[in-house]
């Protein structure tokens, strides 16, 4: 067992631990918005660790650094925030319950954002 194998194994364990913590967040966090924090952050690092482990392992096996893992990471970093944003937006629209401790006043969407008032498409209002 070489040094690289050991490193890859450690990264796999760390990645697994992070992915597990992210999923645990789904259970222990109290409201919808707080639960969004788990999958957007903790899971990205978890998967990142596993992909680095995979890169190291195949680098030792084939002697070539494979780029596909980098691409997976890149796609993940591009898509995770977008899906989280859409989920949060949907939550706001549906007026989901918030944990009682949640502070912050400007929570409600404005009329035009809920759909009570027609809004021009952003492209048309821009010159």
């Amino acid at each position, binding site marked *: 067992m070489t040094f690289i194998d050991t490193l890859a194994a450690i990264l796999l364990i760390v990645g697994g631990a992070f992915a597990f913590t992210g999923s645990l967040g789904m259970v222990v966090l109290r409201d919808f918005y707080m639960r969004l924090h788990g999958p957007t952050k903790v899971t990205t690092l978890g998967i990142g660790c596993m992909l680095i482990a995979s890169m190291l392992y195949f680098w030792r096996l084939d002697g070539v650094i494979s780029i596909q893992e980098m691409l997976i990471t890149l796609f993940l970093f591009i898509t995770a925030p977008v899906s989280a944003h859409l989920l949060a937006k949907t939550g706001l629209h549906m007026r989901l319950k918030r944990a009682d401790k949640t502070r912050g006043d400007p929570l409600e969407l*404005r009329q035009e954002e809920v759909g009570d008032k027609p809004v021009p498409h952003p492209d048309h209002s821009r010159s």
Partner: protein
Amino acid sequence: MIRPRRWLPTPVLSLLLLAVWLLLAHSIAPGQILLGGILAVVIPLVTYRFWDAPLRIHRPWLLLRFLIRVIGDIIVANFEVAYLIINFRRSMRPHFIEYPLMLEERFTITLLASTITLTPGTVSANLRMDGQSLLIHALDVDDPDALVAQIRQRYEQPLKEIYEC
């Protein structure tokens, strides 16, 4: 919006698509280059309506520094949120914050919103229709003004300098 009716409305995007295709296919066989080239022409032609005119990068070095800083922050963010989840008995102080935007271009606002989601304890929840402010949900925050100041100084200011100045 980008002007339609040109073969390559977004040359940089086309090059990027070709490069990503070849990396995904993991080969530079002529067939793959041809296929990637066709995709690199067709995809921008189909999607050009969605794209704003590309912004010029004014300060590439600052962009590099920004990227490194964001990657560092992502790692820190992961540990912070993992810690918060594991210590769930400790009471958290979730907070909705209205963040007044200084940026104007939709592309840079998208970058900022994604950065906010990926970094410590904050998720961007809604961009107001008028594009003036961003609604942020923070997981555990004490002083919302400090958070706004931190985001402004750490992420928005560099983005503004890189793309909009």
